[in-house]
């Protein structure tokens, strides 16, 4: 048992932190207000730090970080700007990830070097009628000669607006579970249109779009793995995405705690800094404790994955706990800041809004609890 980071991991974390603090942090409020995330920032992260290829093997131009390294990067990013962290996480884990894990050689050669250095990847599973019950999706893909023809509507597509590739789940057969297939679809494919841009509570700078497929013809060679593998691909990827959301939750929560400690030292009431009052000091203690627990759970799940061991339940625990802790911690941060926490002059107002979605996407808290409990009950026997 050893909770220490290696020198390489520290270096990675510090490099990302320094870059973000110098180059990104000063502009976050501006971009959040404008609701935009300039592509140039991503391009720089890809070209200067290699962060477009976190899960891509070196032979395809990536930096092939292990899961712990991935968590460290996402935490640092979310601490500065949650919208950026989700954009980068989605690109890596479910944009490039499915091609890394399930793509054939031709698909890997064609897409991975571009995704590692220049392109942005998105993922499309949810539909207006299907979220947690992913297998209920209705978008169809019908084989027609050398193409598949897609029809249907997708929503909640993170980075939907400026992605270059979408990994899209569509139904190729009636079987609920085994009738789903995954396709790589390039931006600008005729029949693919971007529709609604969501107005969200938080993550304002991360664009969330709906997609409509209308007789959209996709080359058959863009089928990932085999027909019917779609749900397995989606669930495999979501498993590994989960500690990424945990890391994001941790980053937001850490920012909220840091801001609260600073404020609790500066702000005075009844003749002393508010941190000296137990009401506030104990909130800080609770926040720190939950943050530490979240990080330990996330790192354990990531370490298990890196070590090639089973990690699905642990990833669910990390995602469940860290996301709920993040909501709790950002809530307390507002409380400590009082009226100032409710106005946008202080960043905790944004942290509070940004944290909330972590309990929802990439598997709601309810889905995580279901995964954890059913597994345990099965093992327990009577």
């Amino acid at each position: 048992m050893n909770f220490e980071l290696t020198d390489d991991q520290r270096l990675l974390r510090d490099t990302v932190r320094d870059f973000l603090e110098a180059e990104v942090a000063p502009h976050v409020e501006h971009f959040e207000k404008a609701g935009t995330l300039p592509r140039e920032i991503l391009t720089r992260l890809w070209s200067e730090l290699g962060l477009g290829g976190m899960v891509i093997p070196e032979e395809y131009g990536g930096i092939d970080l292990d899961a712990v390294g991935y968590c460290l990067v996402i935490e640092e990013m979310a601490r500065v700007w949650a919208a950026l962290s989700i954009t980068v996480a989605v690109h890596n884990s479910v944009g490039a990830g499915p091609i890394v894990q399930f793509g054939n050689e031709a698909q890997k050669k064609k897409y991975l070097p571009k995704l590692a250095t220049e392109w942005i990847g998105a993922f499309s599973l949810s539909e207006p009628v299907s979220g947690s019950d992913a297998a209920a999706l209705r978008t169809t893909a019908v084989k027609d000669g050398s193409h598949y023809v897609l029809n249907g509507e997708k929503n909640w597509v993170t980075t939907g607006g400026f992605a270059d590739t979408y990994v899209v789940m569509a139904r190729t057969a009636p079987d609920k579970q085994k009738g789903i297939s995954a396709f790589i679809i390039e931006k600008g494919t005729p029949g693919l249109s971007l529709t609604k841009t969501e107005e969200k509570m938080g993550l304002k700078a991360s664009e969330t779009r709906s997609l409509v497929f209308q007789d959209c013809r996709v080359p058959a060679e863009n089928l990932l793995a085999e027909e019917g593998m779609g749900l397995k691909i989606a669930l495999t990827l979501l498993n590994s995405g989960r500690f990424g959301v945990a890391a994001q939750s941790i980053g937001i929560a850490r920012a909220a705690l840091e801001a609260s400690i600073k404020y609790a030292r500066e702000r005075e009431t009844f003749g002393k800094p508010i941190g000296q009052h137990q009401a506030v000091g104990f909130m800080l203690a609770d926040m720190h404790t939950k943050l530490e627990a979240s990080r330990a759970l996330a790192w354990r799940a990531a370490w298990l994955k890196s070590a090639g061991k089973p990690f699905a339940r642990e990833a669910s625990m990390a995602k469940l706990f860290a996301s709920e802790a993040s909501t709790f911690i950002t809530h307390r941060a507002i409380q400590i800041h009082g009226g100032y926490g409710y106005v946008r002059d202080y960043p905790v107002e944004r942290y509070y809004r940004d944290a909330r979605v972590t309990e929802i996407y990439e598997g709601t808290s309810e889905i995580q609890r279901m995964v954890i409990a059913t597994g345990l009950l099965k093992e327990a026997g009577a």
Partner: protein
Amino acid sequence: MDFSLTDDERLIQDTARQIAREVIRPRAAETDATSTFPHENVKQLAELGFMGMMVAEEFGGAGLSTMAYALAIEEISAACASTGVIMSVNNSLVCHPLEKFGTADQKARYLSKLATGEWLGAYCLSEPDTGSDAARQKTIAVKKGDRYVLNGTKNFITNGQVADLYVVYCMTDAAAGHRGISSFLVEAKTKGLERGAKEKTMGIRGSSTCQIILTDCEIPAENLLGTEGEGFKVALNTLDGGRIGIASQALGIGAACLHDSTRYANERHAFGEAIGQFQAIQWMIADMATELDAARLLTWQAACAKDAGRRYTMEASVAKAFASRMAVMNADRAVQVHGGYGYLQDYAVERYYRDAKVTEIYEGTTEIQKHIIATGLLKS
């Protein structure tokens, strides 16, 4: 980073699990119902070296890591929380300060007896009027030639009625506040040391908790542990380690709650299916498991920091605060999953519920842990 257990740690865990299952668990209900000190458990733990796990082998200890210790306490406490705290007090609160602050002579006289389980130790800091505010000791020790004379009353002393050696904190210089506190080694047979009646505790009923009353109790001056005025430092240093022990005890209780609840949820049927098929029950089980794992990792993180020789006060407080809360929550959920049966002494969860509560109180209340954490955060 490495989240796997070493072979040695696994061996200790398996050994502890085996004695817990085969020897300790079968006696746990009886220990609780009769409020009897489990002498036989302690004897068998001593044979495994579990009464002085972290003590160096030259003093008769097992020379193991804090990590191994945490694993053992968890397994023992899952079977019987009373036995867990008896073990924790002897290891963390008595053997540890004696090994760290004791003179060669003190170690020769006492440490191997305690580490091998021939003797049992107890730790006397709290007083009737002094708990969390430990610096306000009213028990006094006055030097008289080559002896100290102790007067005062110590409260809530685990192992109190059966211990052979007591680590006792006294004021030697009342004007100096916490810098006027000293710690002493007092043998049970010393004239002037009297054991009070056994407390009627809600849980951990085998722990033999009582008052220790000192009336003109004379001890040799060489039984001063550390230097005069060093007592508060000894106490705090000791409690940091003790918190890992209690956090581990809480893990054991929390794990037992989860274990019993998953089984019951599969067995018990309602509305045509096993109650574990209902999300209401599944959610409780998922939360029990998640918080248990989080508590375990925090406890192990503190243990690893201690083993690495780093300061670990914050980590120990975080672990103790979180793990004790988890134990209380898990016990509450376990009783709820068991319904009416959970309220009966026929099921062990009734005992877990009573045992869990004390983990939020002793060896530093949750409020003291939060105070330590908040102070650390605001200073950093």
